[in-house]
């Protein structure tokens, strides 16, 4: 567990900034958690997490199954609020304001903090409608612009050529990888600041994995990414910072290079070297 959260944040930010041209304020944390403990019923899933995500960074959350990564991630845009038995203490700040503050509108929060799930979940509507569903819900664009937005987002995720001639067809006939890219296009269409990804490529073929990874890299730093992954190589490839969850604790957090090559804790060492779960 990390005792000096602030210190670690600054360190990790330095590591990030040194590798990029963009100058970011060290204090520019888009999301941070404060003594966040989560559980279901009597059970505590994770305890006392102080973790901060610099604006524009890509953070990987790694750890064995059941270590609470999904629960943590889903809390960041309040997807757990209505889950039966869910308990929480502590807080999550988005742009320095509690996401449970009465000033925060839940729907607006979810527009700013989007999410991509482990399995693709297209809506039962045409491919084009899928992309613009969120745009319509939030009333972001004029009706006449919707087609253009759909095209732009499909191009952005590299799906346009494949679906150009079947925009009005069912999304369920697309391959798994294409469906996941469609869901990504849908999430991007409402212009989120943060994207939460829960093992977004675990059900995909290598080509689609590469497509998603490249997309994440190209969208950073405009979008801050928080990515749960079981694919350690993926974490190394795409993330600036890595957080290691283990047995209900945030065991270690720091620059990805540091976590993988010179971790401070023996559990981290064992996990990243493949000797655990």
């Amino acid at each position, binding site marked *: 567990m990390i005792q000096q959260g602030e210190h670690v944040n600054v360190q990790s930010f330095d590591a990030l900034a040194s590798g990029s041209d963009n100058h970011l304020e060290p204090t520019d944390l888009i999301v941070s958690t404060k003594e966040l403990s989560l559980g279901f019923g009597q059970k505590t899933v994770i305890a006392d997490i102080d973790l901060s995500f610099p604006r524009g960074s890509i953070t990987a959350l790694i750890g064995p199954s059941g270590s609470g990564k999904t629960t943590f991630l889903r809390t960041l845009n309040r997807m757990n609020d209505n889950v039966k038995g869910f308990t929480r203490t502590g807080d999550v700040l988005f742009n320095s304001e509690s996401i449970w503050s009465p000033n925060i509108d839940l*729907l607006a929060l*979810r527009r700013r903090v*989007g999410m991509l799930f482990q399995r693709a979940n297209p809506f*039962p509507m045409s491919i084009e409608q899928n992309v613009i*569903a969120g745009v319509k819900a939030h009333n972001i664009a004029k009706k006449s612009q919707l087609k253009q937005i759909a095209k732009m987002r499909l191009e952005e995720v590299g799906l346009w050529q494949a679906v150009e001639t079947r925009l009005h067809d069912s999304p*369920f006939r697309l391959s798994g990888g294409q469906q996941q890219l469609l*869901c990504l296009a849908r999430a991007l269409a409402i212009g989120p600041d943060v994207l939460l990804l829960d093992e977004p490529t675990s059900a995909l073929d290598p080509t689609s994995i590469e497509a998603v990874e490249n997309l994440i890299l190209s969208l950073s730093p405009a979008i801050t990414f928080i990515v749960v992954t079981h694919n350690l190589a993926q974490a190394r490839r795409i993330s600036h910072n890595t957080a290691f969850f283990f047995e209900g604790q945030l065991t270690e957090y720091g620059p990805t290079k540091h976590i993988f090559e010179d971790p401070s804790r023996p559990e981290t060492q064992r996990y990243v070297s493949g000797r655990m779960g």
Partner: protein
Amino acid sequence: MNHSIAVRERSRATLLKRFFSIKAVSRIAAFLPPAALVFATAILFAEALPAIKYNGLGFLTHTQWRPGNFYVNPVTTNGVTHPVGALYGALPLILGTLESSVLALVIAVPVSIGAALIIVEKLPDHLSQTVGLFLEVLAGIPSVIFGLWGTLTLGPMLARDVFPLISQIVPNIAFFKFFKGNTGHGEGLLTSGIVLAIMVIPIIASTSRDLLRQVPRLTKEGGAALGFTDWETNRWISLPWIRTGLIGASVLGLARALGETMAVAMTSGAVLGANPSNAFLPMTTIAATIVSQLDSALTDATGLATRTLAEGALLLTLIALATNIAARLLVRRVSSTALPVGRGI
């Protein structure tokens, strides 16, 4: 070695035989429902044939229902012996059947879907179970009880408190003119439609509820994560996901309403040949006519009256059949747009 092979061969043979006999039985079983339908329709047709000959196409267009004079000697026309002056026109019955059923569906479908959404998405488990039980009980109540309640309690109440209000509120244009004017005494089209709606709501609501439970949580969460309101998630995800099933459930309800007899016979006023000028006045349906006219029809020595009732029954069967076929075509169209193959039923 040889011995064991023989045993294996033999057991395989019995297995095969058993397999084929199961297959044969299930094949016969599969043919039973269509066979029963064809058989019943054929019997009805044979029974109705003299009436079909005598009534001709006028059966579908005339508005009079006159059994004729049973007390003078029958005469023969087109080879059919019939009472003098017999004239059967089923147009009001056909219209009444369609109008009351469609009215029932127009009321029942939104109410049922709304109820199902509340049961699945809003109510805590124990409450949704209680409501589910209530629906099942409601579905099991004999229709004569609904009929009695409709004619003694609901009808008069509607005529006193609700119909005048409706007649006042609706605009005096086109379609809505049907809900203006004399508000009657509570026996009529709208009362029947409402009673029918109450009878088919349990069917449609419980089917919709079961369908809604099959919508994947992951897909609904996709909506929530995108900042959908609950209403948007329901409208854009859950209901489209199950839309073919919803059509099926509605047709189930429609079939029930089309064929419902006692409740309509008791709440419609069952006025033969009635062609109500508005929704509040007495009317009748094919099924209600069959049950209310059977007694007197049996006194027609020529048999034409009962054969005409059989013709009505045949017509009702054909209407139900046509409804089902139309629904099937609709389902095919709707399911081809966005649902995963084989999903949503």
